[in-house]
């Protein structure tokens, strides 16, 4: 197990290093992209450009530039934005990260719970109207775009029915830190959570249902029934447990991507200043240090999520552990 973890750790560091080099090269060494002109402004003269280059170290060889960049990003942590001069990048990311993490974690809990429930119900009642109904509900969830659904939710909770007893408790758009007020945090996030999770509930319920239906045909599920176990136990302990493998790998990918900034639309619709929003804004301004920082942040979570998936695999399936 330790060797397994060690191997994963080395692989993670290597992947992150490669991503940092790659994104650095894309943003700083691509012909036609001159960071200096970005910083200096549209109509800067040659002298200013030279000064800017010297100032930001952009006249040094590429490997040195890369080293400087990484040093500022990870060691001195004083990398500054090219656009808002003087604004430090790291605090921007560390401010945005809790927002995104709160959003995605909460949504993930909801979508895992609901999709497992719906998948189980559909599989147990396979071929009956219950199955069809659950799957149609899932399909509706998949088909609703997040930005549209979010706006509808906002319309209902923030204006149309805001003054009724139903939604009068809903706070205005924005984020309340957990440390400030746990209940306020919850209230500010409950609708973003639901909105974000709807799509995933649909997808995951379908994935789980088909895995469960396959599992029902497995010999070991037949054995479990022949042992005289209750149907409930057969489903939960034998069919569900082995069906979770596909579920978990999908979850790892999606979770990593969302934490890395993939929840952009939800963040924008609900006025949450998370990593997605930050990345989006920095891309708009081509603010290279911020882009680099958010890319590294995203990569870190995606790689971490993948490593966790492998770990969960090993926990779920002893065959992986012993391989």
């Amino acid at each position, binding site marked *: 197990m330790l060797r397994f973890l060690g191997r994963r750790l080395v692989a993670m560091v290597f992947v992150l290093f490669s991503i940092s080099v790659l994104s650095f090269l894309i943003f700083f060494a691509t012909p036609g992209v001159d960071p200096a002109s970005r910083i200096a402004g549209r109509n800067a003269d040659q002298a200013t450009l030279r000064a800017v280059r010297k100032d930001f170290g952009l006249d040094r060889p590429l490997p040195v530039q890369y080293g400087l960049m990484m040093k500022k990003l990870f060691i001195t942590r004083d990398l500054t934005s090219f656009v808002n001069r003087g604004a430090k990048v790291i605090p921007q990311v560390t401010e945005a990260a809790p927002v995104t993490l709160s959003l995605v974690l909460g949504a993930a809990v909801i979508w895992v719970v609901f999709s497992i429930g719906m998948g189980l119900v559909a599989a147990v009642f396979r*071929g009956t109207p219950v199955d069809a109904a659950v799957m149609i509900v899932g399909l509706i969830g998949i088909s609703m775009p997040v930005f549209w659904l979010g706006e509808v939710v906002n319309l209902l909770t923030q204006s149309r029915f805001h003054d009724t007893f139903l939604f009068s408790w809903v706070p205005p758009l924005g984020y309340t830190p957990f440390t400030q007020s746990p209940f306020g945090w919850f209230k500010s996030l409950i609708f973003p959570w639901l909105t974000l999770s709807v799509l995933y509930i649909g997808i995951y319920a379908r994935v789980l249902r088909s895995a469960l239906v396959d599992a029902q045909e497995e010999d070991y599920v037949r054995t479990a*029934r*022949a*042992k005289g*176990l209750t149907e409930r136990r057969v489903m939960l302990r034998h069919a569900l447990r082995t069906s979770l493998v596909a579920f978990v790998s999908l979850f790892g990918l999606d979770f990593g991507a969302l934490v890395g900034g993939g929840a952009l639309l939800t963040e924008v619709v609900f006025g949450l200043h998370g990593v997605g929003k930050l990345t989006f804004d920095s891309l708009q301004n081509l603010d290279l240090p911020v882009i680099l920082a958010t890319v590294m942040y995203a990569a870190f979570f995606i790689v971490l999520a993948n490593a966790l998936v492998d770990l969960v695999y090993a926990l779920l399936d002893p*065959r992986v552990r012993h391989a």
Partner: protein
Amino acid sequence: MPDALLEVCDLSVSFRTENGVVRAVDGLSLSLALGEVVGIVGESGSGKTVSMMAVMGLIRDPNAVIEGQVLLRGRDLMQLPRNEMRLVRGGEIAMIFQDPMTALTPVYTVGWQIAEQLRAHQAMTRKQARARVAELLAEVGISNPGRRLDDYPHQFSGGMRQRVMIAMALSCNPSILIADEPTTALDVTIQAQILELMKRLQRDHGSSILLITHDMGVVSDLAERVAVMYAGSVVEEGSKADVFRDPQHPYTWGLLGSIPRVGRPRVRRLAAIPGLPPSLIDPPEGCRFAPRCPHRFDRCSVRPELAPRVSANRLDACHLDPAIRPSLRHRSVA
């Protein structure tokens, strides 16, 4: 015939499909006495597995229609409420399956899986269950059972997994063991080990066994009575010696002639049965075997009943006059 422990009366299992109704089991009657080993032989599609799944209440296909009676000590299992039937499964009737490689859940230790069955049927603490599991594993010949029970199925070979399955099946002292092709997936030397084990356990526990197989040798080895199935019902039944030495049904003749025998000098040609088994969607009227039977005559358009035609304990479903059967048989069996 002694008092029947299990009696299957006119059991039918059909499945509604897009192409029509598949009559997988079509009027199967069979009985099993206390301590008796009955072998059911037949080729794939003869309905032998489906019928036993029906006996166990394991057919869950919503398109399946099951009719007939399955009497366990006089109690009709078909009428049993779900929860009582659950206790019959694994408690009074246990089952082992063909492929030991896939029959155990891969993510739990074998000890856990056996204990799970014990605790589903008997009030037991974890510790008691664990001790009992170790005993059971030792009984089926797994060395070092105290340690092995913490191993996962993939850490066992096929033969060892089948031993685990047997230990699990026997864990609640069932009165009946249904063994569905228990050695088919195993190599012949491992098969020999499992057959010896099953014989010993049968002797020690006195359990009744319903053995399903296509392998005449395996039936010969374990069973006392043999029922030959074709296209969903029994065509011939009798003691092992009678069925193998003096088979009455032309299908049995063909089956025995089809098998290359070891231990006899080579024959020039196998007496194959021509044609294919009939479609179960639209089975031939009358005798199901008639289209492939070299001895069919006009009466075969009426379906023959399984009845004693030769002697009281010899059942067959064939219109041929018992007096002329031996001479016909010599022409078909090499």
